[in-house]
């Protein structure tokens, strides 16, 4: 299994600024994922981050807007750049780790971002 923490848990930011969200896993994992979730809505995958290679972005998300770092097997960051109110959302980090006999995806508690 894996325990995932995220920092910050919430933030209020001004438009035009950037915020970096940190995701820490308590064990080494190969794949990490970043999602965006509007309150009460489903999860939308932003990108997949594999250690040692460039992140793979989903349609509608670009590296200039959401740069991701994955410096080692337990840590990743997501930056939300040049923020606008439309970026207000919950950002979730997840990681794939071996659970009970199979790989499972574990999630962090999320970062609630409000852009004013």
């Amino acid at each position: 299994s894996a325990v995932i923490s995220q920092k910050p848990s919430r933030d209020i930011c001004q438009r035009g600024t950037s915020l970096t969200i940190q995701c820490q896993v308590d064990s080494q994992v190969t794949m990490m994922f970043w999602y965006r979730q509007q309150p009460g809505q489903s999860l939308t995958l932003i990108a997949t981050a594999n250690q040692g290679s460039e992140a793979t972005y989903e349609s509608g998300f670009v590296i200039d807007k959401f740069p991701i770092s994955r410096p080692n097997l337990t840590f990743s960051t997501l930056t939300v750049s040049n923020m606008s109110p439309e970026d207000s959302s919950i950002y979730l980090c997840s990681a794939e780790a071996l659970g009970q006999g199979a790989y499972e995806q574990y999630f962090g508690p999320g970062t609630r971002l409000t852009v004013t």
Partner: protein
Amino acid sequence: AQTVTQSQPEMSVQEAETVTLSCTYDTSENNYYLFWYKQPPSRQMILVIRQEAYKQQNATENRFSVNFQKAAKSFSLKISDSQLGDTAMYFCALTTRFGNEKLTFGTGTRLTIIP
């Protein structure tokens, strides 16, 4: 591409009763994995139950069980003896391969357990 559909946006049930949440999916793969995740108001997403498509036996986990109908591409979650702590958003999800593969999520069902 795969899709996951949850047709019940909201459900409510009395405490101690049984409730079934529906999920249908579509994929062209023969081997895949299905999941139910729970997201309480605190928002930490928790894995409830997992089903491998190649297994005919329905997965069970204490009060949680699934009805997996592969031919119909249906994957419902049954919660028995429901408890107040079961109040949460429930998401059905699909992946075509374990290891290095993303999840496709449904839109979720908001379940409320009434005391």
